[in-house]
């Protein structure tokens, strides 16, 4: 199988062409350094992404708190993760770094808050 990549590790943006089979790179060209090879290997055989989104907040000054995964998760789990956090609600106040979900979907990554949302003062 053949595939083309634009390496996004650094601003050089090498256009890399690769021939590969199950779990193995047979031929690679276009990468100026080893990091390009690592990038392509990861992208082909175990791609991961950090995900950012938001969850609802009860009694907060804002209706949402932004969140992120504490580390990248396998790419194929992205939509499962979105489903998992769709129904979550947290109670204000929320602080940056608060763990919203521990070890989400068994990925080893936590969902953590990336914004401070204060409690709404009832008038």
């Amino acid at each position: 199988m053949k595939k083309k990549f634009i390496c996004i590790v650094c601003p050089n943006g090498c256009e890399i062409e690769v021939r590969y089979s199950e779990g193995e790179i047979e031929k690679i060209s276009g990468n100026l350094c080893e990091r390009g090879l690592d990038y392509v290997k990861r992208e082909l055989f175990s791609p991961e992404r950090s995900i950012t989104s938001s969850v609802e907040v009860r009694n907060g000054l804002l209706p949402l708190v932004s969140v992120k995964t504490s580390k990248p998760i396998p790419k194929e789990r992205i939509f499962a993760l979105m489903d998992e956090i769709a129904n979550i609600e947290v109670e204000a106040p929320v602080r940056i770094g608060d763990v919203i979900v521990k070890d989400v979907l068994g990925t080893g990554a936590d969902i953590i808050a990336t914004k401070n949302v204060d409690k709404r003062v009832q008038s």
Partner: protein
Amino acid sequence: MIEREVDIAIIGGGPAGLSAAIAAKKSGIDDILLIERNESLGGILNQCIHEGFGIEIFGEALTGPEYMQRFIDKVEQLKIPYMLNSMVLDINEKKCITVCSPEDLIKVKAKAIVLAMGCRERTRGQICIPGTRPSGIYTAGCAQNLINLKNYMVGKKIVILGSGDIGLIMARRFKLEGAEVLAVVEILPYSSGLPRNVVQCLEDYDIPLYLRHTVVDIRGIKRVEEVVIAEVDEKRRPIKGTERRIECDTLLLSVGLIPENELSKMAGVSLDPITNGSMVNENLETNVKGIFACGNVLHVHDLVDHVTLEAELAGESAAAFVKGELRNESNIKVTAGKGIRYVLPHLISGKNDVKFSLRVMYPDRDKKIVVRDGERILKKIPKMRINPSEMIQFNIKKEYLKDVKGLTIELE
């Protein structure tokens, strides 16, 4: 009406204003007023919940809210005074600022002003898309605000015009939230966003990118029902016969940002017709003495880290001005030559180290940025890959700038 005086007024509490305020305070000025029209500090970073901020400054990829909080915490810790929900209505050449605040109308007489108002999005009217005027047409940043801060989903079947970074990031955001993103349409032969975003926002989710295409019609009565896209020729004119309809309920526009300089003009600040920001010298001072500019109001940036660093310089310069320590001897012109769209600063003194910022006209490979004074070449910077979407910055030491008559920066 309340009247008051301050040493430094900073207009805009986004990343530029925050950083300018902190730098001014650290330079020994206590009498600062940071003026923000929104209900919280942080500016656009409030809604930029994606990652990638702070790689240069903090060495980690933070989200927008995390990045801004570090600076807001600093402002609080340094006890820098700020006003929220306060809109500046006018600035005059005497540096007198009229602010509409919940308290009252306030006249602030400032010794120095830092302009940090940021930029706003280009709209449908400015790019003249024909068609009906249904609901469902948003600028990408407006849609980002609604989904990320207000919890409103703007549509289910989305077409995005423009492949700038905000457009790309919104494509991914809406896909993750369950919408169909049918197409990203770009009039240029290349994406105007960072390659990282093309890969991780479009390719990851199989969202098609139509290069050399534009939207030629919007149809729908109450709500957008479909848009028509067409291929464009070399002069970006739609080619007859290439039209195709895309059924959708929402059109997002990510078609450029314009520095928000209405206030600057009132103060008599001269603007650069290319950047739409002010003309500045190496201290980031405008043609009006004591008025400085930084961040997206000066020129549109792609990385907030660069905004922060630029704003630090503006804050330091404003502080030096107030203390009577700022020497303005910048009378050497810096010109954008072949292949360069613009370069900042516009004027230098030749007596200090200078950091230059520039953008190229077209994407290319294996080029050199050449800095010359007439025939004399001061510096050559090899670039393996250049892209208009990536601002290029470099420093030149004062030793090299001695006796310079005028600088031209060009591509070779």
